[in-house]
């Protein structure tokens, strides 16, 4: 039987950013958009359409879940999302995979000479 964590890898860039954004604390949609913008140092701007399409998929796969609103004076339209324990395992596996790719890339760059074809 296939590992349920491995079957979800690799994650799409949007899914990876969203999981990372909600890994620290629960966030609402616009909060996730802002966090993704901050994480990527302004390089990746997630629109609401893309965000909620991914949120729907991540909820269906059990990686995130909706939690109750925190404050009574909060905008009633806001919904908050947090990472599930399964989502945390998937995110950890993806980070490990990306770390391995990064190590390989660094080694390849360190050993290769410019213009040399092996």
């Amino acid at each position, binding site marked *: 039987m296939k590992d349920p964590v491995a079957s979800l890898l690799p994650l799409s860039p949007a899914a990876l950013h969203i999981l990372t954004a909600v890994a620290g604390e629960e966030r*609402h*949609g*616009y909060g996730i*958009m802002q966090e993704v913008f901050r994480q990527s140092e302004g390089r990746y*701007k997630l*629109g*609401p*359409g*893309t*965000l*909620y*399409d991914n*949120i*729907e998929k991540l909820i269906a796969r059990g990686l995130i879940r909706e939690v109750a609103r925190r404050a009574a004076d909060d*905008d009633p*339209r*806001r*919904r908050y999302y947090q990472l599930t324990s399964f989502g945390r395992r998937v995110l950890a596996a993806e980070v490990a995979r990306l770390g391995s790719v990064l190590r390989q890339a660094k080694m390849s760059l360190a050993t290769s000479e410019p213009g040399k074809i092996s």
Partner: protein
Amino acid sequence: MTRFFYRFLIWMHPRAFRERFGDEMLCAFDEASGASAAPFLIDGLVSVARQWMLRSGLWRFSIGAAATALVIVGYAHSEANWQRKQLNAQELLEARNAHPLDKAEFNREAAQAVAMLARYRAADKKKSDSSRGTSAARGPANQSSNQN
């Protein structure tokens, strides 16, 4: 005006998605009101297309349409090639008819072939006649030997 248009885009989404996330999308739009509206509108348009494609099974239709288009293009290409070959054959025929020298050469070669065939037939007839004459001469001798 842009908010109205964004609301319209949200309304264009499939009902299930709109009812689940429509308010949140508008909330995010309102909260980002200081930013440029263009990326939101583009994202909204892309989202409408994506949601309808995924939810209505339209992606299957799209794949089918793409495959059909490929088959049609392939057929048109092969048809064009065939017509080009037909044109080339027609040009060759016209070119051959335009040069009487070729006809004369053909006639000369045909006459040579006919003459060669006639020579072969004559040689063949001569050979068969000679073999018949030999067997006729040998016939009575064989009969007498059988009687003995």
